[in-house]
């Protein structure tokens, strides 16, 4: 910018928080004669309404075009002063905040002189950077009020219906012939004893009649481009490719049950089945008898932690995680069994019973009803063999009875297999979703952004993200519905303008920037005059991370708001001698 800048500098006392350790007036004096500084003042509390009003007045009277406030951390008041600048009719990005509290006065309480010098350097740096600010505009993206949901299990079905209620259009993809996932195969589920099959049937019926939801079965997502709020995707449905334009994508691809190795926990013996298989038996049984292989079942032994909480020393690629649902699901299946035939003996071989929260009441009901819980040590796991009578004989050391060796014979052994991630190679290729150590999709942050991924506008939910029970799956699915709503319901999103820009004259397209960008924000295009190929930054995808800047051999890339020139002049100003 060629024109001489008119910068206002305001140094804050913070009621002693700064001024007790930094000579605030000396900082002001040092800055007063700095090139480009028109106004240099101090305030007891710069953030107070009164001080803000004084600054607004001065911006007008002195015709200021850049503001520096030296006060606390920008985390506290960056937003405050950007708003103040806007109210004064100034572009909010011509405002800079310099932190002389957390990073100076509070840190150097023992040395007022040095703290004051540091403050002067910091504020000078802020002024130098501000002198090179340009008015920037937020990047506004018009969003499309449509959501693509991949996976029509319980989570995907519920998410679709709520999105439709919210007035958004939904495309629901299911790779199988029928929607409903695992739950449609199950009868009574914990904790409310609702039948999975019936609930799913109701949801599917609603989906089919909804005008806002299009359900595609035998469908796959094969291509995605564009950015948050405005994705172009292609799906393949029974050989046909359909293009769709959506604002957000929710991935609810679910889990698969742990697959046992031969002999693992007696797998392969007659009478040893998995929990999902047992649920199908319960589902198929009548109201008064439990039949397996044509014979009435007299005893059932549940074995917990099968395929979960595996130990490094026992497996090559162990599933270290707990599958969360299996303790309660096993206990609940036991209670359902008792409901069918109370005379059936029930045993649970467990490590820790994780009937968390209210599920503890089910555990209590199971114990009070006579189910026996035996705790095994993973160092000496139970041993299974086929007895001559066709039943399964189990040897187990029970820690609850002082490590007594017990022998049981049981008609059925139900292995509470954990949840493992699906291998969705094709989908992962299209969406480029990060996968965690446990093999499930990974959110950005379990607390700050629990359903968001590093790919803006693509959300994950349900058991694709990690083991969950039904209510928890739906809860996370609806949380991703909320996030989609936040993105799409206003019709636009505003992003901060701190993104990379390419100097087309300098760029020679070597491709290094494209390689290093973790967000896939850079692509090759032909320059306007057709003379060469250059890099193009998709502003909506760029996060201003800046990794592309140092790798560019031509120095053709800058980050808006943090240009090379700004940073070097900031450093120069900071190292200038303080007299």
């Amino acid at each position, binding site marked *: 910018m060629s024109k001489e800048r008119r910068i206002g500098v305001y140094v804050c006392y913070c009621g002693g928080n700064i001024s007790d350790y930094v000579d605030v007036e000396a900082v002001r004096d040092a800055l007063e004669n700095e090139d480009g500084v028109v106004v240099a003042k101090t305030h007891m509390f710069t953030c107070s309404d009164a001080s803000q009003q004084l600054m607004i007045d001065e911006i007008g009277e002195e015709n200021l075009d850049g503001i520096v406030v030296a006060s606390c951390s920008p985390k506290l008041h960056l937003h405050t002063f950007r708003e103040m600048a806007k109210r004064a009719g100034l572009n909010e990005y011509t405002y800079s905040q310099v932190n002389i509290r957390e990073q100076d006065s509070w840190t150097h309480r023992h040395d007022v002189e040095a703290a004051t010098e540091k403050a002067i350097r910091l504020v000078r740096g802020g002024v130098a950077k501000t002198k090179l600010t340009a008015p920037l505009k937020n990047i506004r993206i018009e969003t499309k009020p449509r959501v693509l949901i991949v996976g029509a299990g319980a989570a995907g079905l519920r998410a679709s219906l709520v999105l439709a209620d919210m007035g958004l259009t939904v495309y629901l993809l299911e790779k199988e012939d029928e929607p409903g996932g695992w739950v449609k195969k199950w009868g009574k*589920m914990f904790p409310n004893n609702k039948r999975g099959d019936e609930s799913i049937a109701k949801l599917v019926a609603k989906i089919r009649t909804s005008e806002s939801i299009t359900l595609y079965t035998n469908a796959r997502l094969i291509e995605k481009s564009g950015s948050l709020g405005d994705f172009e995707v292609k799906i393949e449905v029974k050989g046909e490719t359909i293009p769709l334009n959506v604002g957000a994508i929710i991935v609810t691809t679910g889990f698969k049950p742990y697959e046992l190795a031969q002999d693992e926990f007696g797998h392969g013996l007659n009478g040893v089945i998995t929990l999902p298989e047992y649920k199908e038996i319960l589902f198929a049984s009548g109201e008064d008898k439990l039949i397996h292989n044509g014979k009435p079942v007299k005893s059932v032994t549940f074995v917990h932690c099968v395929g979960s909480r595996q130990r490094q020393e026992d497996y090559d690629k162990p599933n*270290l995680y707990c599958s969360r649902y299996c303790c309660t699901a096993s206990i609940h299946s036991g209670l359902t069994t008792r409901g069918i035939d109370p005379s059936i003996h029930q045993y649970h071989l467990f490590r820790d019973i994780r009937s968390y929260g209210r599920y503890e009441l089910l555990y209590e009901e199971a114990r009070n009803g006579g189910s026996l819980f035996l705790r095994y040590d993973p160092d000496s796991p139970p041993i299974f063999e086929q007895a001559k009578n066709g039943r399964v004989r189990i040897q187990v050391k029970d820690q609850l009875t002082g490590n007594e060796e017990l022998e049981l014979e049981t008609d059925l052994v139900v292995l509470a297999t954990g949840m493992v991630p699906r291998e969705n190679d094709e989908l992962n290729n299209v969406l480029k979703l990060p996968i965690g150590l446990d093999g499930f999709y990974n959110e950005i942050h*379990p*607390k700050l952004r629990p359903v968001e991924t590093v790919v803006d506008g693509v959300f994950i939910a349900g058991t694709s993200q990690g083991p969950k029970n039904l209510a928890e799956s*739906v809860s996370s*699915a609806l949380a991703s519905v909320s996030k989609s*709503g936040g993105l799409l319901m*206003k019709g636009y999103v505003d992003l901060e303008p701190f993104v990379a820009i390419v100097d087309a004259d300098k760029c020679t397209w070597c491709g290094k920037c494209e390689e290093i960008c973790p967000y896939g924000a850079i692509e090759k295009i032909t320059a306007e005059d057709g003379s060469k190929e250059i890099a193009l930054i998709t502003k909506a995808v760029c996060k201003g991370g800046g990794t592309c800047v140092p790798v560019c051999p031509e120095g053709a890339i800058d980050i808006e708001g943090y240009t090379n020139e700004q940073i070097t002049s900031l450093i120069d100003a900071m190292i200038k001698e303080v007299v």
Partner: protein
Amino acid sequence: MDYDILIVGGGIAGMESALSMGEMGYKVLLVEKEPSIGGKMVLLSKVFPTLDCASCISTPKMASTAHHSNVDVLVSSKVSEITRNADGSFTVRLHKKPTFVDSDACTGCGECELTCTVALPDEFNFDLTARRVAHIPYPQAVPKKSVIDRQGLSPCSYSCPAGVKAHGYVSLVRSGQYEKAFRLHMEDAPLPGSLSRACYSPCEEQCTRGDYEGTVAIRGIKRFMVDYYYDKHPEPEYGPAEVQQEKKVAIIGSGPSGLTAAYHLGRRGYPVTIFDNMPEAGGMLRHTIPSFRLPKDVLDRDIKNITALGVEIKTNSTINDLGKLKDEGYDAIYIAVGAGMPQMMGIEGEGHLNVLDCLTFLKQAQDEEKPHVGRHVVVVGGGNVAMDVARTARRLGAEYVHIVYRRTVEQMPAHKWEIAEAKAEGVIFHPSVVITRVISTADGGMALECNRTVSQPLSTSRQSSGPYVTDETIAIPVDTAVLAIPAIGNKPNTVPFRNDLAINSNSTIRVNNSSLQTSLPHIFAGGDCATGASTIVEAIGQGKRAAFYIDRYLQGDKLNIAFDERLPMTDKHSVHERERRVTELEPLIDPELDATERVDNFDEIAGTFTEEQARYSANRCLDCGYCSECNECIATCPSDAIRLDQKAEKSVHKVESVIVATGFKLFDPAKKPALRPDHPNVISAMQMERLLSPTRPYNNLLRPGDGRRPDNIAYVMCVGSRDHAAGNPICSRICCVYTAKQAQLIMGALPLADITVYYIDIRAFGKGYDEFYQQASDMGVYFTKGRVAKIDPAADGNLTLHYEDIVHGGIKTANHDLVVLATGLQPEMGVASLFRDENLELDELFYVSETELDYSPGQTSLDGVFVAGTASEPRDIPDSILHAGSASALTAAYLEKRKRNT
């Protein structure tokens, strides 16, 4: 204002809901009962399983919530009720507690906190450390505004008829600020010296410490601060008010009431002239109270406080013509002539020369030329004045001073200490004797003829249960008799005003009880001449009141506003509740001269506390009402934001939907006495969170009992969870993994410490949790399966745990130097009662029921009402956030459907 949604509770679930709804474009009202949003999460150290700093995760959410353009946050506020409107929307009534700080003006600088003189246990540090009454809840609070904690007025301040902030000056003396303490007193009453000697201290009667070892010596503390100040400042530090008013005020009478009125009017800039018919100012203070109780130089110094303002005192000036005063240019008149008319009993022979009324007697005793009283003096009466008379008579040389009283000594209205001092000085008490007449003896002397009485227990009124007079007659020979009977008392001399003003039948001037205005608008009257004989401090209170209304009158303002809108008195019961573990501190008695040293002179008998004694005494104060009104915050606040008169605010809003996010409370381990939760080295896990947090109270991991570094720490799991006896059969979901987290953090802080976790099952079920638990185990944390049955104190502040070792068998004991109780969660109560006329369904444990848990997490039994987070079940933070997201989606769907249907 109308909103799309009301969110009740500003914890992590409430904030997440608010942000989700705000982002979707809905107008959100978030109501939080605490002064900051953020709930409990922001108080944690780090959070599992990622070990991020809890504040670093919470504060951005708190700031985004507070700054979001679609979200209005109301803190320190409670929902009073929610009612359903005919169209399905809701009317919400809110109650905002006063924080006594103008939050728009407050910049959160924390200066008030530095000057506040009252410390309380810091609830946000779970009582591990202290905070001030004026405080910012915690460093990351949003909004970062000060709050002043006022639980009502402390009983001492509340009971003072002059409105002197007793708690305030006690608190200032406690912190060594004696001159400030004096100046605080001067805000209300300008005669602190006199009060420190002669006030009957209703404050001490009300003092809550009196329910323990003995009342705080409030008057003794005042006396110390007054003597300290007067010693440093023989003259007042101020002169006349800077801005002078034009209108003039005349005050008749220079007693405590007149002087006080003059002082407050003088401070407001009015030219004031006091007229008094005596040669010296002070009224009863000078002429009635014996100088051995109130030395006259103290009174003289007190009076300077008034005259320094330019108040003129014209002595020897009798005012008999009120109209003339008006003609002389006085725009308002305050009559405070007291009740100085002696009253006799009306018995036979009382006209005898040597029978005196008490006022005349006491006045004569003040003269240079002391009256001759002879050897035998009889004082009739049992009140404080009677004691003063008797003790004065002893000092005038009477060998035998008799107090004759018609009831028992116990029934005497005089203060116990006055009776005791009189006895110590040799005064002879004749209880149950009534005087019937005065007879002249043959030798020209005098005797009192008396009858014995039989006393009955005192009922409500002294007169109604008068003693039964027997026929037994006695005669007491006497040189001087003084009648000092409180039941008769003294009357005001209001004769000169009879023509101008309405006078009551008991000779008092008729006034409006609030404004003290008489039947003539420009004339006010107060003190004893309006109330009848009373106390000094009452008279001072009247003077202050009169000044307030005279000022309003002269400014042309209405008089029908309240004089003194003070908070109600704090509930003593709540003080007792919180002071269960008060350290015993014996009260100090005011020092005084020995009886033998004092009985032959008029020297002041009581002494002044030393500085150390005064501070010790002040330190006994229990800070009943929390805020002492020492006004230090007002003086120090750079942005004038303190508003001690702030009132609760009520508001009404229309909302379309509600999310209940009221969260949880922690199980109170006091309900498990076998685990010794009262032992200083048995702490709750939440306290351990604070010890480990970035803003930790001790800046180190120390055990609270003795500040030693713990070396062998035990965690007791499932305290208040999975426990029918504790009323909570369910699992709290978070304790196992937060314990694994704390154990890891402790191992970082104290690498050599041993940590043992006593558990039933380790429930590390969430994403990454079991790996996190394994990590703790691999780091060397001992996990022992076994429930701890009881804990006993052991030597050196250590503790012995009794537990069953499940895996290895047997009942065992273990010694630890710090025990952490992993307390579980319980629901916040009172949620359902917010909804009037509608039933918000709760489960058997009082959590909000989710009626469609599997497919609509967050839906409640009421249309348009949703629940988020731990209000419906214990949840960890990620689950709470997801649940809040779910509730938000359902709310948005509900709102959109409503829009389409209307």
